[in-house]
């Protein structure tokens, strides 16, 4: 059961932060898109520059088609920066799902109320997911507005794909941080360990084109599922989407199991 007072309080407590994240995303998209006309107008020069980069570098940052609208946006926004923002946002919300109350000392009164820990955790988990959905929608809308103004010729469906992949990326990060945070009752451990896992995954993903061993294990790397698709050109890979859905599902079940069976920290 969703606890509506907790939904309202969670959003009310963080509305300024949420607004800042949204404005930041809009600003980032605006700045990057404002540069695109220059890139487009000097495409011949840019193609020479990008071709001079090592192949692995081009692969990591998806620079194979840098001067096309989809190629430019994929490289500048979707290769690392925006997914990293979503990972951080997701981990920040996920780590505090239950540990925020425990660390601030408010958990004793809260969990002495006739609410189940399952309902509380589920509510907070869903609030985090809704926040990610909202920010990914803001990102998608910013892209659509910018692309329309600049006449980029990219269909709305592709932007929806990009938003979906970012949402799933953030949700995976959110759920990983939630499972660690709810298991330990410590926000810093939830946030730190999740970011460490994601950064390790990113290093593996980045170096996979260069190192055979990494390349062999990269298909099992969540970062490959998150970043390996080309939502603005080829669309989403349903296998990656399915795998990315498994992370939140498994982590949610893990969070429930650990939180329902452990002591509330003081």
């Amino acid at each position: 059961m969703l606890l509506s007072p907790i939904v309202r309080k969670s959003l009310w407590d963080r509305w300024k932060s949420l607004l800042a994240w949204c404005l930041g995303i809009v600003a980032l998209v605006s700045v990057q898109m404002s540069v695109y006309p220059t890139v487009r107008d000097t495409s011949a020069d840019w193609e020479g520059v990008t071709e001079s980069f090592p192949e692995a570098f081009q692969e990591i940052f998806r620079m194979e088609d840098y001067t096309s609208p989809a190629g430019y946006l994929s490289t500048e926004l979707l290769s690392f920066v925006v997914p990293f923002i979503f990972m951080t946002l997701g981990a920040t919300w996920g780590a505090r799902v239950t540990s925020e109350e425990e660390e601030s000392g408010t958990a004793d009164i809260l969990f002495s109320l006739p609410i189940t820990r399952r309902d509380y955790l589920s509510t907070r988990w869903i609030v985090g997911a809704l926040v990610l959905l909202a920010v990914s929608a803001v990102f998608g809308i910013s892209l659509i507005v910018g692309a329309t103004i600049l006449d980029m010729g990219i269909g709305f469906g592709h932007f929806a794909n990009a938003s979906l992949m970012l949402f799933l990326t953030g949700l995976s990060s959110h759920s990983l941080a939630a499972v660690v945070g709810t298991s330990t009752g410590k926000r810093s451990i939830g946030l730190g360990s999740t970011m460490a896992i994601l950064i390790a995954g990113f290093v593996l993903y980045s170096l996979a084109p260069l190192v055979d061993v990494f390349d062999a294990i990269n298909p099992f790397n969540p970062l490959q599922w998150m970043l390996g698709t080309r939502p603005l050109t080829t669309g989403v890979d349903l296998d990656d989407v399915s795998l990315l859905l498994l992370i939140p599902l498994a982590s949610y079940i893990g969070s429930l199991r650990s939180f329902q069976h452990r002591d509330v920290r003081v």
Partner: protein
Amino acid sequence: MNGEVPAAIDVRHLTKFYGSSRGIEDVSFSVGRGEVVGFLGPNGSGKTTVLRILVGLISPTAGDVWVDGRTLFADPTGWRARVGYLPGDLGLYGNLVVSDYLGLLARLRGVNCGDAILRLSRRLELSLEARIAGLSKGNKQKVGVIQALMHRPEVLVLDEPTSGLDPIAQREFALILAERRAEGASIILSSHVLQEVESVADRVVILDHGRVLTVDSVESLRRRIETEIHLSFDRLVDLDTYTSCPGVVEARRDEAGIRLRAKIPHTEVLRRAALDGVVKIVSHEPTLADVFLSLTRSNHAS
């Protein structure tokens, strides 16, 4: 268990280990309807652990709590609807104003407590419009007290309830507690203010090092320890007369009369003294503090 009061809560052999360190071990006691049970113990004796188990915040390693013939752990959510809990380390949402905070808790409880909140805040002289972060420690404690009482719970679990309250608020709180008790609420109260426990508790559970030292009424506990009595006479009296009185542990003569160490009641000693024409009696009646110190000291010594 007090034989006159049917048990509402029956705590049986509760044990809690935190990893390899012991929190409490084999703690048993019961609380009847309309009964106030005081919890006493030195710091780290396990009082808060017992209270947190009672409200379902932590699970016992062993043992059980029975409520109306059913284990508390069968329906912890249903049980918590019947309980009002005031934790010792009070954490409130500082960014909310008092009325919003109490309203939030009421909504989560699924009850309308508007009138009760208003009434209690007036009695405790707490502004409902103040932001919690700006409140003094005592006023924050009042917020904690109100949230524990506002839904008229059948069971109150209070950890250091008067901590930080001024004497006026303490007196009002004692009155509220007495009213709730008269209505049949079972109250478990932990406090370092021994006088407070002495004045409100029917029975006392004394814990030390995670174990129950004793469970008894305040009066029975007082009877357990020795009091020093000094009797002054204007003539020489027979010392043996006093040595043979019930409860007297030691009697010796001094220059002004007789000095006794005796357990209460001192009825027989006083009767004899009156017959011997006593001119002055100096007695230190044992308080709960004396009992507490005596029991915990002897436990530490053993």
